[in-house]
């Protein structure tokens, strides 16, 4: 797990390059008016946050992942004055991402209910076979277990960070993560034979 020191967020005007400073130090530096500190934070997290949305959005909405990423960083900018360096920046960042994702899902569900625009398009565009397999296998998992597994595997968050984000005890995170991995293993091994020859051809035609 990548270790990020916290609680050592004193801002000194040292000559240390921005890339050598912790997320929390950069955030505090930005609060004191240093734009390059935020640029560094953005360059560190733009791709992970983009991936966070891409993997959680259904196919037609994936094109909006960049928009949601932008909204997340704008929300970070707006809330930067309230940021407390006692909390890990990335936990705080993903918490904002979750809120934006939930708002997006609510909006999509509202449109699907009242405007009749469905977000479920059977067409799978620009997906490679591995993506499809994993997406399908992940889709079979329990919702909470899937979220824990994704936060661990893709966002590389520690158990304690996941527990804080999802408001769960760390022990629950550990046990649910274990169950998710077991279930995913079964699901992947079960889907692998099903994807051969005919299914494989179907997927390849779509690519």
């Amino acid at each position: 797990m990548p270790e990020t020191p916290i609680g050592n967020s004193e801002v000194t005007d040292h000559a240390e390059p921005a890339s050598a400073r912790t997320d929390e130090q950069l955030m505090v530096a930005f609060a004191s008016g240093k734009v390059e500190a935020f640029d560094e934070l953005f360059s560190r997290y733009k791709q992970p946050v983009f991936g966070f949305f891409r993997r959680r959005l259904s196919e037609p909405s994936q094109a909006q992942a960049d928009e949601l990423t932008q909204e997340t960083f704008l929300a970070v900018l707006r809330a930067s004055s309230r940021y407390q360096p006692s909390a890990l920046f990335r936990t705080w960042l993903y918490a904002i991402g979750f809120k934006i994702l939930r708002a997006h899902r609510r909006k999509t569900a509202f449109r699907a209910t009242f405007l009749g625009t469905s977000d479920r398009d059977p067409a799978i565009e620009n997906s490679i076979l591995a993506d499809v397999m994993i997406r399908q296998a992940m889709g079979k998992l329990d919702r909470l277990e899937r979220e824990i597994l994704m936060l661990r595997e893709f966002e590389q968050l520690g158990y304690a960070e996941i527990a804080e984000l999802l408001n769960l005890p760390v022990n629950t995170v550990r046990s649910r993560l274990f169950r998710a991995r077991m279930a995913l293993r079964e699901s992947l091994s079960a889907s692998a034979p099903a994807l051969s020859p005919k299914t494989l051809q179907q997927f390849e035609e779509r690519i």
Partner: protein
Amino acid sequence: MIIATHPVSPEEVMEYLDGELSTAGAEAIRRHIDTCAECAGIADQFRAESQSLEQWNVPAIPEELDRLVHSAATEASTGKKLSNPKGIFMRAAFWSRGQWALRTVGALATLGLLLLATIPLTFNRSYPKTAMYEVAPKNLTALSVQTDQLSSQDHPAPGPPPLPSREQESKELRPVGMAAKLSSPPPSAHTQGDVISGGGGGGAHLDTFQATAPMIARTASLSITVKDFAASRANLDAILARRHGYAAELTLSTPENSGRSFNTSLRIPQAELTAATADLRTLGRVEFEKQSGEEVTQQHADLVARLKNSREEEPE
């Protein structure tokens, strides 16, 4: 699978691979995995699973976002307020559950108040104010009278008469009715009365009322202080007979070292209410008077419906 006596559980292997164990704990697991083929196999499975998940790639983020976010960061650093593209909907996304609950309850309460305020206005608009009283049914009026008499024995000549306190009197007042207080000894008579008239409850007339007419239950409350308690009570009975009313409730109290009080609820036909109230005022000095009206159209409609249903269900 690993048996129960195995020193390392699969979950611990997972924790070790996730880097969640302390240095000593991780070292112990590592040494065990080196010597245990079964645990090494489990670790390999976890690794393979993570590697397969790594294949779920996402494309690179569009480069124009760099410029957009950088200019937003520059604006924010100069103290400029960033515009919120999503407005209220995006702000709502940041509400906590408590905030959601509070705002929902607030919105519902506001809606309820608006409805309460709008419906009577809409309803009354179709009837001129004067017409409301003209079409009011010939109902019975409720009166409650409380009489209070202070005897000369209770209050010796010197000093001011210990009249019952106003607080006590107001507590004795009832929402419907008239209260009269009679005090004999002191220089003045004290009478207190409440009169209330109701426009919607006359059972005999229920079926004859037009459903569209608003029905008003009028209530008058009077508090009267009188000099002669007995005479005033007789007068009250006379007024009641003259105005075709009846006493729904009578309460007479004669507390020690205090004035006598007589509290009664009278029901008077609607047409006689004004005259009855005027008659009651002649009993003594009016200390308090209050009149109010309540629309009972809905209650009346309910009563008519219940009456109709009951009649229909009545065995022939």
